C-alpha cells in the first residue's frame, strides 16, 4: 500500500486564501489522493489529511459566523465526522466540497447549540441580587423575624464564656487568634465554648442533642 502522507502536508496550507486555480487544483488533488489512501487504511496519509483539513475547517467555521473561541470545538467535531463518514467520499469527485459540506453543517450545529444556550443563559449579574426570594412573602418574613428573636433570646441565656465565643467567632467573624488575643482565653477554650454553645442552642431551639453544656 502506498503511503501518501508526508511532511509536505502543511506546506500547501499557507495558500488557503490563494485564489490561484493551479494552487487550488494541487491541493484538491493532494487531499483527494490522501483520502483515497486513508480509505484503504493508510494511517500516515490519514494523519496528513486531517492536519491539512484543519485550516479549511476553521475557515469554513469562521465564514459561518462561529465565534473564534469555538472554532477549535468545531474543528474537533468535523475531524470526528470525517472519520465516521470517510466511506461516503468518492475519490472520483473533488474532496473539498465534501469537506466543506461537513464543516458548514457542523458549524451550523454549533451555532444552533450555543444559540439555544444563549437563549436560556442570559448574562445578567444584577438578576441574582434583584431576584425575589420565593419564601419572602409576608408569612416568611414573620417566621424569619420570630426565629431571629428566639435566637437572640437563646443567646442571652448562654453562659458568659459560651456567649463570648459565639459573639467573637460566629457573629464578628474573628479568627481564633484574634478572638484569643481580644478575650485573653486560650484558643482551645474558645473552640470548646463555641462547640458547647451550639449544642445548647440546638437544645433551646428544639434540635435534639447530647452531652453537657458546661462553660470553660
Amino acid at each position, binding site marked *: 500500500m502506498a503511503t501518501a502522507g508526508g511532511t509536505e502536508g502543511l506546506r500547501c496550507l499557507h495558500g488557503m486564501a490563494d485564489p490561484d486555480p493551479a494552487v487550488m487544483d494541487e491541493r484538491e488533488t493532494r487531499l483527494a489522493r490522501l483520502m483515497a489512501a*486513508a*480509505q*484503504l*487504511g*493508510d*494511517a*500516515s496519509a*490519514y*494523519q496528513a489529511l*486531517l*492536519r491539512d483539513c*484543519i485550516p479549511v475547517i476553521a475557515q469554513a467555521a469562521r465564514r459561518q459566523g462561529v465565534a473564534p473561541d469555538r472554532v*477549535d470545538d468545531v*474543528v*474537533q467535531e468535523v*475531524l*470526528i*465526522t470525517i*472519520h*465516521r*463518514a*470517510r*466511506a*461516503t*467520499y*468518492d*475519490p472520483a*469527485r*473533488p474532496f473539498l*466540497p*465534501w*469537506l*466543506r*459540506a*461537513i464543516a458548514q*453543517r457542523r458549524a451550523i450545529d454549533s451555532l444552533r447549540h450555543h444559540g439555544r444556550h444563549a437563549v436560556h443563559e442570559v448574562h445578567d449579574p444584577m438578576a441574582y441580587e434583584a431576584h425575589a426570594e420565593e419564601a419572602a412573602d409576608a408569612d416568611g418574613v414573620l417566621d424569619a423575624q420570630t426565629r431571629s428573636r428566639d435566637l437572640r433570646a437563646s443567646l442571652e441565656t448562654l453562659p458568659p464564656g459560651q456567649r463570648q465565643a459565639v459573639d467573637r467567632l460566629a457573629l464578628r467573624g474573628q479568627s481564633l487568634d484574634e478572638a484569643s488575643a481580644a478575650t485573653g482565653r486560650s484558643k482551645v477554650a474558645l473552640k470548646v465554648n463555641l462547640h458547647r454553645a451550639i449544642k445548647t442552642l440546638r437544645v433551646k431551639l428544639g434540635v435534639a442533642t447530647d452531652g453537657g453544656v458546661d462553660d470553660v
Partner: protein
Amino acid sequence: MSRATPSDAIGPGQNPHERLIETLARELAPVRRISPVGLAAGWLVVVIAFGGYLASMSDLHAMMRRLMAAPDMWLAALASGVTGILAVVAAFMTSVPGRSPRWALLPLPALALWIWESGMGCARGWALPMVHDATFAQGDHCLIFILGVSLPLSLLLMVLLRWTFPLRPNLTLALGGLAAAGAAATLLNFFHPYDASVTDLVFHALAVGLVVGFNRLFGSRLFR
C-alpha cells in the same frame, strides 16, 4: 474515543488537535466506499422483487384493462412509480456529504404529475357519476395497504441509509418516506379495482403524509 481539547496541546506552536488526529489514525480501518446510486438500486431491486411477487397473486389483465381505460389512470400509476424511483435516488444522494441538496427537487415533477393525474381521476368521477368510485371502506383498504407496504420498505431504506452519512437527516428521511409511499401506491394498483375518487385521493394523500412523517419522526434517531 477520547476527545482532545485545545488545552491538550502538547507544546507551544504544536497543533492542538494532534492528540485527536493520532487517536483517529490509530482507529483507522479500511472501509468499503459507499455508492448512493448502488444503494438506491439495491432498494429498488427489493421493491421490484416484491412487486413481482404481488403481480403473481393479482389479476394482471383486469389491472391493465382498468389502467388503460383512461389516460389519467395509467399516468397516475406511472407518476407514482417514477416518484418512488426518483425519490429514493434523491434520498441517497442527499445522504452523502458534498452532494447538492437540490437533489431533493428531483422527484417533484413526477410528484406533481401524480397529484395532478389523481385529481383528474376525481374530476372524471364527478363528471361521470356512474363510474365505480371507491367507498370509505375501500379508501380505508388503500390506507392500510400503503401503510403496511411502506413500513417494511421504509425500514429497509433506513437500514441502507445507516451506511451513509446524511448531513440533513430530516430532508433525506422525508425523501425516503416519499420513495416508500410512492412505491407502495404503485404496488397498490395490483389490488385497486376502482377508479380514483376524492375519498381515495384523500386516503392516498393521508397515507403518503403518514409515511413521510413516520420516516422523519423515527428515522432521525438513527443518525444521532
